[in-house]
């Protein structure tokens, strides 16, 4: 009983935080917030908001970029999985190489990746420079990329960043599906392997990765950092517009800002609704397709697979160049327009940036380490207590933990910000760190949950029978056996925290600058070398974390954990 109450208390933390955030965005959105001078309910914030120029096109660009990006990202992720690891384990050779590339892409922080991609596709960017080697291009072409008004550059960035996320989510889920035997049955019934995979594995896989898919969709709608670098400028996306309003020194502007944040929540729910409707439609169409007995790919299947492969190849080239762009810039002495490669190499940019780099570096690292520790302790307690509740309750709890990834973070974070304002508190290190924890925790929890459940329960049982207390069993049996999973979850937690942009902006009170926020802030300044230094440092810290985790996990790997 006590254990169940303790578990409920843990579940309540993210639940209450989100609820509080939503309440305190709802009230000011309808004009009520005494601390800011709103004493009665009114529709005035909405009138102010609707008077805002470009609101409609902001909503349109937000929705288009997300709804274009997500189906492509999902399709490519499944296609890549069918090729790289149809049975759950990466094949050797080229597929294995592709899997490694995808893990690099996943580990590259959003901000750094967006900056690299922006340089790649800009009129004076790398692609044009490479083309200039064969074509007579002397001045940058007059193109509105990356900040095109429909948000298509943003969509491209979202595809490339969400695709590896969905790929690894699906790869992890694949282990639950008994794929080898299902595929053997499919083959014995005469089905060509690729088609068998899409008829037998993909539909069930999708059901298992629905939560990551929704999270990716919600993220696409609220990715402020990527929208700043790749999205439309005037007007920007809805999320960016809301954040801009909170920077207004006139506190009365918080009311329309709250209304806008609420509108963003509505847009998120609408997008999820559209997605759900498409899910049902596709499921219906699939039912006939599954039972039609067609055993080898028809022309349409083959064409779509070819198109997907071509797109994936293009994505690999773009992704690799975007990752390489920032380190290259940071080392460039000069890199004048039509040249495809910089005059290498100079540490001048690093020397210039280093003094200013220290503070955001310290903030980034201290927040990431604190948040990860907090999230790890929380996740261990959560999983330890979870065994006292039923399977259904468990799933509900995990959904609540994942809510910060699905509900509009713009909406509830702005609510929390307004609440702090009302309490007379200002943002800073601790509010920033605590808000990071909301986003880091679900990743750490989900990364630990699977290895946690797979550990042979007899280890603990035999330790208990030897007279060890439950706490001692946890500390000296379970946790050491799970060490590889723990260090990986820690690296993941650090990576998520280091990449976060929006919570730092909204909760930092203007005093917390991290590598991610500085890299984005500097990108409007124009010195690509300095931006390169910040983006590279950010990516290096995250990669170093994963390398350390990989190294520790390999050293600690025991046969019991296979």
């Amino acid at each position, binding site marked *: 009983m006590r254990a169940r109450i303790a578990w409920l208390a843990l579940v309540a933390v993210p639940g209450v935080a989100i609820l509080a955030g939503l309440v305190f965005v709802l009230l000011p959105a309808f004009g009520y917030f005494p601390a800011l001078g709103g004493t009665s309910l009114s529709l005035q914030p909405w009138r102010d908001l609707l008077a805002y120029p470009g609101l409609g096109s902001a909503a349109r660009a937000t929705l288009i970029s997300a709804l274009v990006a997500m189906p492509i990202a999902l399709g490519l992720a499944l296609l890549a999985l069918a090729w790289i690891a149809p049975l759950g384990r990466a094949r050797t050779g080229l597929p294995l190489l592709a899997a490694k590339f995808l893990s690099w892409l996943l580990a590259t922080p959003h901000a750094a990746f967006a900056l690299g991609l922006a340089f790649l596709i800009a009129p004076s960017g790398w692609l044009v420079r490479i083309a200039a080697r064969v074509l007579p291009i002397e001045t940058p072409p007059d193109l509105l990329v990356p900040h095109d008004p429909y948000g298509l550059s943003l969509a491209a960035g979202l595809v490339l960043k969400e695709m590896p996320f969905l790929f690894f989510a699906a790869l992890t889920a694949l282990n639950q599906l008994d794929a*080898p035997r299902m595929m*053997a*049955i499919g*083959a*014995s*019934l*005469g089905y060509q392997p690729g088609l068998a995979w899409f008829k037998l594995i993909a539909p069930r896989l999708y059901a298992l990765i629905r939560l990551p898919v929704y999270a990716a969709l919600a993220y696409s709608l609220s990715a402020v950092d990527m929208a700043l670098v790749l999205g439309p400028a005037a007007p920007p996306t809805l999320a960016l517009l809301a954040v801009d309003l909170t920077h207004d020194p006139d506190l009365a502007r918080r009311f329309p800002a709250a209304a806008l944040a609420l509108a963003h929540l509505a847009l998120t729910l609408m997008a999820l609704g559209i997605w759900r409707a498409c899910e049902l439609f596709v499921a219906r169409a699939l039912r006939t397709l599954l039972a039609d*007995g067609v055993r080898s790919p028809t022309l349409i299947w083959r064409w779509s697979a070819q198109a997907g492969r071509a797109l994936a190849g293009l994505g690999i080239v773009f992704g690799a160049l975007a990752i390489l762009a920032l380190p290259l810039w940071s080392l460039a002495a000069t890199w004048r327009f039509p040249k495809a490669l910089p005059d290498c190499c100079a540490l001048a940019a690093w020397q210039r940036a280093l003094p200013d780099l220290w503070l955001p570096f310290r903030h980034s690292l201290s927040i990431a380490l604190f948040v990860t520790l907090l999230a790890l302790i929380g996740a261990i307690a959560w999983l330890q207590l979870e065994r006292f509740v039923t399977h259904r309750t468990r799933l509900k709890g995990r959904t609540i933990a994942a809510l910060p990834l699905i509900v509009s973070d713009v909406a509830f974070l702005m609510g929390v910000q307004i609440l702090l304002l009302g309490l007379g508190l200002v943002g800073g290190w601790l509010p920033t760190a605590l808000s990071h924890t909301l986003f880091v925790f679900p990743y750490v929890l989900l990364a630990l949950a699977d290895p946690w459940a797979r550990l042979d329960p007899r280890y603990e049982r035999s330790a208990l029978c030897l007279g060890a207390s439950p706490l001692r069993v946890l500390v000296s049996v379970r946790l050491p056996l799970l060490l590889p999973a723990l260090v990986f979850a820690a690296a993941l937690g650090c990576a998520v925290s280091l990449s976060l942009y929006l919570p730092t902006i909204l909760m930092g009170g203007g005093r917390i600058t991290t590598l991610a926020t500085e890299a984005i802030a500097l990108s409007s300044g124009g010195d690509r070398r300095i931006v390169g230094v910040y983006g590279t440092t950010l990516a290096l810290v995250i990669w170093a974390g994963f390398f350390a985790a990989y190294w520790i996990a390999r050293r600690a790997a025991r046969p019991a954990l296979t």
Partner: protein
Amino acid sequence: MLELRDAAISHQGQRLFAPVSCRIQPGRPVTIMGPSGAGKSSLLAWLTGVLPPGLLGEGDVLLDGHSILALPAHRRRLGILFQDDLLFPHMSVGENLAFGLPAGADRATRQRKVEEALARVELAGFAHRDPLTLSGGERARVALLRVLLSEPKALLLDEPFSKLDLTLRDRFRSLVFQSATHLPVLLVSHDPQDSIAAGGEVVQLRAIHQPGRIS
């Protein structure tokens, strides 16, 4: 006719069992017997073309006089029944069967074929059921129908009776052998009852003694 010629599986250069040969005519099932771990399932995996990496097959397999080893798994036309029914959980009973039916024909015809097949095994009206709601015996019958509807040229049985309880086992066993009289049937099992029910030739897999392995 299905024919095995000096078939053997090896792992790291070590054969798992002495090579076996047999000719299987329609209506005269052949049983391959052997203790668990002798390599029975690996042999079937090799026949169906899904041998896991690390294992190597040798010898030849002929179906109606042609070697099938060069064919990919899905062109070999060998139907297989496993110990578990492996009905696809994301499809209804009817869809599972329609998945086995060859392509072509309009939806109504396909549906009628599925209904007729279900009626033959006393499962009339089950087409819309979720496989999860079926009993073990019912699921086994659906799995059998699914493989028969796919019109295989031979049927492989990988201990498909061992998970059913005793009374069900006998009934299902005779159903399988009765409905596959037109096909060469190869059964692998460690249960002597199976070979008696199959009634045909019995091939014993003799494990090759491996140093360091407890036999």
